[in-house]
């Protein structure tokens, strides 16, 4: 079932949680809502579920307006960050709950409920815990039970609020790939909220990056990582270096470098910022080795060698942009250059994105 959100706005007192959000989730897709805390991602998820009412805008399921529909009539599966398992019920009863509360005419018989619950417990690989209580389970187990419980009512849509947020790093990684596999098997339209970019990049088909109640970018993990649409997305997803410079009629000058900026042909003497990923920077000991016009001179101020990559912290010699420039090069290249602290190097971005400087 597809989900459509049109012009949603929601205000909590003076705080605008959602500002005019429009979004489409395709049928069978696994979509991530990614953003820092307070970006409105959880509010958006809760509005889609019907747990929160928007001030304006519409929510449509499969093209049908569901804005006025009560939560219980929307038939969504919802997984809470802190699991929200019923503490007074066994695991079996937790999963059976959605079936047991159905009106008499729609309620499956006892044997059928048993069969379904056991099937789901097997699906989440926890059938041996059926008689336990939630407090006897680990966090990861609880979260899987929460998922089984949500799936018991055969929802058309699965909504997950920071599903792995309360788990430790190892369990989180495990559950993440498990969720991906589960989704590939079931093809249920799913939306999950996360503030963890790695999680979103790894699991989702598409990512919606949110900030201050707005959508910054929608795209595949590759798109949002490789071609961030805004400075915010650049800074939120992965490391990035900022180079200040200026733009003029399709050309940009950053330090000693001149580059083409075809998307800014109408810019007239504009202050600009170039965003460059650490692995998109060429480093050499001699300026001439870098083809193209110009390079930026810098000194190596620290070296951090982790696995196959070496991270360099560089200080610019021209004194512009005081912050350390972070560069990632392969260990091989690092050996080739024979760099030590204090060496002078020349750098040149191999790929950069220009944005007009924000006036502060």
């Amino acid at each position, binding site marked *: 079932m597809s989900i459509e959100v049109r012009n949603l706005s929601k205000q909590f007192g003076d705080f605008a949680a959602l500002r005019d959000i429009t979004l489409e989730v395709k049928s069978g897709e696994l979509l991530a809502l990614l953003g820092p805390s307070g970006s409105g991602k959880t509010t958006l998820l809760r509005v889609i579920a019907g747990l929160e009412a928007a001030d304006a805008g519409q929510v449509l399921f499969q093209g049908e307006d569901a804005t006025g529909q009560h939560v219980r009539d929307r038939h969504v599966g919802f997984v809470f960050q802190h699991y929200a398992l019923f503490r007074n019920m066994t695991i079996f009863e937790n999963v059976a709950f*959605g079936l047991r509360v159905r009106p008499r005419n729609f309620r499956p018989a006892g044997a059928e409920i048993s069969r379904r619950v056991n099937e789901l417990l097997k699906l989440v690989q926890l059938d041996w815990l059926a008689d336990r209580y939630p407090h006897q389970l680990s966090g990861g187990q609880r979260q899987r039970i929460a998922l089984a419980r949500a799936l018991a009512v055969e929802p058309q849509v699965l909504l997950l609020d920071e599903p792995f947020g309360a788990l430790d790093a190892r369990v989180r990684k495990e559950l993440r790939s498990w969720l991906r596999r589960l989704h590939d098997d079931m093809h249920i339209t799913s939306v999950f909220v996360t503030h963890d970019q790695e999680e979103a990049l790894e699991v989702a088909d598409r990512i919606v990056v949110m900030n201050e109640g707005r959508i910054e970018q929608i795209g595949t993990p590759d798109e949002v990582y490789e071609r961030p649409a805004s400075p915010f997305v650049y800074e939120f997803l992965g490391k990035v270096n900022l180079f200040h410079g200026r733009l003029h009629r399709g050309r940009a000058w950053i330090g000693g470098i001149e580059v083409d900026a075809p998307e800014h042909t109408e810019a007239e003497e504009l202050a600009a910022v170039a965003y460059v990923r650490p692995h998109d920077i060429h480093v050499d000991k001699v300026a001439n080795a870098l083809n193209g016009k110009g390079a930026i001179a810098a000194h190596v101020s620290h070296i951090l060698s982790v696995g196959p990559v070496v991270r360099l912290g560089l200080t610019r010699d021209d004194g512009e942009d005081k912050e350390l420039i972070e560069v990632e090069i392969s260990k091989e290249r690092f050996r080739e250059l024979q760099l030590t602290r204090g060496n002078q190097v020349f750098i040149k971005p191999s790929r950069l994105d220009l944005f007009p400087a924000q006036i502060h």
Partner: protein
Amino acid sequence: MTVIALPVSSLAHRARPTEEPVWVRWTLIGLALAFLTLFLFVPLISVFYEALKKGWAVYIAAITEPDAVSAIQLTLTAAAIAVPLNLIFGIAAAWAIAKFEFLGKNLLTTFIDLPFSVSPVVSGLIYVLVFGLQGWLGPWLAEHDIKVIFAVPGIVLATIFVTVPFIARELIPLMQSQGTEEEEAAVVLGARGWQILFRVTLPNVKWGLLYGTILCNARAMGEFGAVSVVSGHIRGSTNTLPLHVEILYNEYNFAAAFAVASLLAMLALVTLALKTLIESKNMQNDKGKNR
């Protein structure tokens, strides 16, 4: 990894956060025990001692004579009406306060506490003022031949008033600490309001609810001040157990007074025992269920 052996004495040192000398500790314990003995145990034992001083026959006679039986019946009736009503009110109020946001929530919380902060005599007088012959509703009630003050309804009303906070007060913090996530989970799964209340919310607070009910019951049966004002002390008709004790005592009928009082004392002991039992149950539950 190297294991560093700590001297045993330093470990023992660290295990005790307080380092009071033996005599200080025993003085404190002794003081507490002496106080409890003097002010609690001795009076409690003396109640039973006085009640049984003249033998079982007198004791049985005192609690089976018609006026005493009628007092017991009235006390049970008042509790049987007040406790269920307060149970419903307490659950409703706690549910509203803990799970919803609404205007005037703080005011409601304050009002629930009112019976705790006001003297029971004053609450009794309020009822006389409202329902009494000279009261606001007095003439209307007299016209329709409804007796509230100096009759059973007045006693029930006064009992309800003084016991309002017990259940609500017990449930509100408990429900608040549990949050609303489980209820949200239930409603997403398709549960209706009543189903959520009976399958999720109430089972989660069952021990607190039982605890509040027992305290509420103890107070309902033991209330003196408010009931005294509205009852009119009509023997065999509007006398509750505590009032009956007072009358007997004022008549210098000590054996009978203490015999009836011993019933109330036993109620207190049973209440305490139940309360302790529930608390230990509750603690076991909490230990496991707190994440």
